[in-house]
């Protein structure tokens, strides 16, 4: 809690408002070289306004700010489609090893063998987990992995003389990045509807595939948290029509070691290391979205990939560009600081641990489903995978919306589920517990959900006004969008 300000609350003033001329946060060394002449003053900048604050102020400000957050280190974060699992502290430690974190990306390869080895092994592990032929670690988030994936599909068709294949099919339940990435890759997008079981509508798919088909982007399990039961046939239909199958691997936590997407014939998969492989989300990144591909797409992988060459028992690692690479996605080799954490995570878990993850993630989600389905609607009466999509349809009759329930959970000390996604479920509340939460935590969450269900019957206005115990109450988001105030301005 900060000192109350003149408005009687504890808003934290912005740094520019804390500025007092002359204060400083650090001393920099004086120059140790003879004075060099500056160029023509016309080239030089005149004024620059930045905060002038002391070091203790900076520490206190950001420490106090941090406490306004919910986080995995402090709260259960049942945010569907986000896999908010425990982020092991050792992974931050290994990423900070000086030989890693101070390694410059242009360092000659012979002086960066340790880092390249980490990348090489991570590539292999990801290829193994997905059952694919090769992996590039270059993409810096899931969405960039998607872009890489669709660009590879594009390049593949072009090399085959099929540049007319411009149609990308995407289920209506898909994550927004899928269509957005397809569009960035220059594809036209068509949505495939879902059937009453939450599966992709196979009939609709068959009607949509044609000679313009480039491929399909699907998520397995789907963003409804359900396993696509016709997946073998779906792949078959797409492949027969000359399309490729793109797998959005964001939901990999459900199938780690239980199923390899490559075995099903997927052609390319991106993996969200900041979900399944537990790199911390950082309040919205950095992430990493490596792409793993089947044999026929290997030549198109984004650059770089790391290769191993064994010469007289000594392995040498180097960065290479595949023959028909779609090119670079960033200036260097991907988000190495994220990659090394994912590597450490896989090493820490091992094969059995990875299998245990999916097993427990799925048990946890089904346990929530089993205990909540009496009080909340569920659109599809089946077992779920690693997450469960509830609907607040019933509560809506009392004027309580999914949003209200989500906000009310904050008062109970839980982060809210994902709301209103997937778009095809009315009043969706998508809950992903992950394997790193204990039964007791789930029980406490269930108790809260049940209590809110009761509140929604008895005191709906209380639920509608939530949250009450959070640092701020509901925000005027319309005002934010109507009169954008996007930075401090001098008054």
């Amino acid at each position, binding site marked *: 809690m900060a000192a109350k300000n003149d408005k009687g609350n504890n808003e934290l003033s912005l740094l520019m408002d804390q500025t007092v001329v002359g204060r400083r946060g650090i001393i920099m060394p004086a120059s140790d070289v003879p004075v060099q002449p500056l160029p023509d003053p016309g080239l030089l900048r005149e004024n620059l306004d930045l905060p002038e604050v002391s070091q203790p102020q*900076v520490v206190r400000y950001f420490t106090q*700010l941090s406490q306004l957050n919910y986080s995995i280190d402090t709260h259960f974060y049942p945010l569907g489609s986000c896999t908010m699992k425990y982020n092991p502290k050792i992974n931050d430690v*290994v990423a900070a090893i000086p030989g890693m974190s101070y390694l410059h990306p242009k360092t000659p390869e012979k002086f960066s063998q340790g880092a390249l080895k980490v990348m090489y092994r991570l590539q292999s592990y990801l290829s193994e987990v997905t059952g694919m032929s090769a992996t590039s670690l270059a993409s810096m988030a899931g969405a960039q992995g998607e872009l890489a994936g669709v660009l590879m599909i594009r390049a593949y068709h072009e090399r085959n003389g099929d540049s007319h294949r411009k149609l990308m099919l995407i289920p209506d339940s898909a994550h*927004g990045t899928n269509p957005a990435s397809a569009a960035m890759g220059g594809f036209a997008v068509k949505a495939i509807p879902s059937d009453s079981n939450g599966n992709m509508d196979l009939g609709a798919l068959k009607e949509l595939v044609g000679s313009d088909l480039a491929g399909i982007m699907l998520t397995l399990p789907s963003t409804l948290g359900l396993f696509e039961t016709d997946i073998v046939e779906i792949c078959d239909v797409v492949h027969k029509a000359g399309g490729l199958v793109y797998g959005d691997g964001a939901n990999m936590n459900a199938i780690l070691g239980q199923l390899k997407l490559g075995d099903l014939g997927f052609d390319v998969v991106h993996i969200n290391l900041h979900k399944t492989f537990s790199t911390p989300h950082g309040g919205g990144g950095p992430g990493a979205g490596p792409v793993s591909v089947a044999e026929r797409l290997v030549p198109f992988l984004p650059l770089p990939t790391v290769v191993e060459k064994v010469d007289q028992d000594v392995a040498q690692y180097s960065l290479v560009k595949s023959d028909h690479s779609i090119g670079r996605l960033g200036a260097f080799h991907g988000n190495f*600081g994220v990659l090394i954490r994912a590597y450490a995570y896989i*090493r820490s878990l091992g094969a059995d641990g990875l299998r245990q993850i999916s097993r427990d993630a799925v048990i946890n989600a089904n346990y929530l489903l089993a205990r909540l389905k009496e009080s909340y609607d569920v659109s599809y009466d089946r077992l779920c995978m690693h997450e469960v999509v509830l609907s607040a349809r019933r509560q809506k009759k009392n004027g309580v919306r999914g949003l209200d329930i989500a906000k009310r959970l904050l008062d109970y000390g839980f982060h*809210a589920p994902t709301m209103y996604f997937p778009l095809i479920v009315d009043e969706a509340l998508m809950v992903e517990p992950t394997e790193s939460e204990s039964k007791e935590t789930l029980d406490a969450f269930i108790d809260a959900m049940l209590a809110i269900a009761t509140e929604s019957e008895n005191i709906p206005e209380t639920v509608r006004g939530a*949250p009450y115990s959070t640092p701020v109450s509901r925000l005027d988001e319309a005002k934010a969008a109507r009169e954008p105030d996007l930075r401090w301005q001098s008054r």
Partner: protein
Amino acid sequence: MQSGSFQHPYIPNTPADREEMLKVIGVSSAEELFRDIPQGYSAPSLDIPQALPEMDLLRELQALGDENRHADQGPFFLGAGAYRHYIPAVVQAIVNRGEFLTAYTPYQPEVSQGTLQAAYEFQTMVGQILDMDVANAGMYDGASSFAEGALMACRIKRRYKVAYLDTVSPDYIDVLKTYTLPQGIEIYPVTANSTNLKRETACIVAQSPNFYGYIEPLENLIETAHSLDALAVIATDPFASVLFRPPGSYGADIVTAEGQPLGVPVSFGGPYVGLFTCKKEYVRQLPGRIVGKTVDSNIRTAYVLTLQTREQHIRREKATSNICTSTALIGLMTTVYSAILGKEGIKEVAQLCYQKSHYAASLIQQIPGYSLPLDGVFFQEFVVECPRSPSEINETLASKGIIGGLDISDRIHNGMLICVTEVNTRVEIEALVQALSDIGK
């Protein structure tokens, strides 16, 4: 791992917990929950080594780290897009706080004001450092930020040609190609003095300081672009923007930069953060996340993700970009760094980079056989023409414990791109000069 049943520290539930839960679920085994996986595909082999205890893991990675030669191990002169600067201890102390590190994207603003207010500070500081109206909350890195700048210009102008200066970093041009070509955008080279741009050009794109470290004189080209109703998208460096007139001051419409120099470890190339700014009028075409200030129901100031109708989760294939997870934490790093450096500190660092690199250049060009082939004003990086192949020279330097500059002989005859920042001491600079001079003989 000790023998016996597998209980992993990251997974709390025990066999007994599971049994209870499976009973509630109404199945008799976890396998049943995976029954939708088609026959023949389930429970594949998994060729991944068994769990490594934390103690062994740390040792393995320390050993791997020792196989690398990192940038603080001795005199080091590489830059070329990733720059070493001193990172005050406060930066890591803050960024490592679990409440920042392990939070998700702030979809629930009521419990995410920490992340959100920090992002607003980021947008403020980026706007101030790059001297532009508005900044978004950060892109993946400098190169993709630059590429998205070109895409944004094409969106704004509904034109599909991009003219680029060939002094832009080749890595940046590669990314530009990856991002633009699939959308049918044509990109073509121009020089800073070009007065003819192709019809239907959406924008010119350039970098200053350019790949060679030199301030690019862009006034004329930008004027030409504007006269054809094209935009100017300029990549810059934050410290260069502190010392030199920033691109916005001579008309750039979209200014991007690699944010890494502002307190982010070089970390073998990432994660970094792309800075992205533009003129106010284009705000609704920005890619990426944006945080805005508003009030809560008690009229308390609060911050929230805003202008989301640009984004993929709402606009899907019509979004301004596919960005979802971005680089909030790295943005926070640069924010804390900028706050600690502050108005004076950041100028001092920029000055030190300038002073030290110019001192190095002045000495090197006096060595027989070495010269500075380029004209103009550089900031902290410069090209040296060497008497022999730079890669050979680098081998010799390395044997003396010095990591030399980047070999760019593919672009400039025997060219070596040398970077000097405030962390290079005079002793290191003089060691380099001595070594180069010995090699030159």
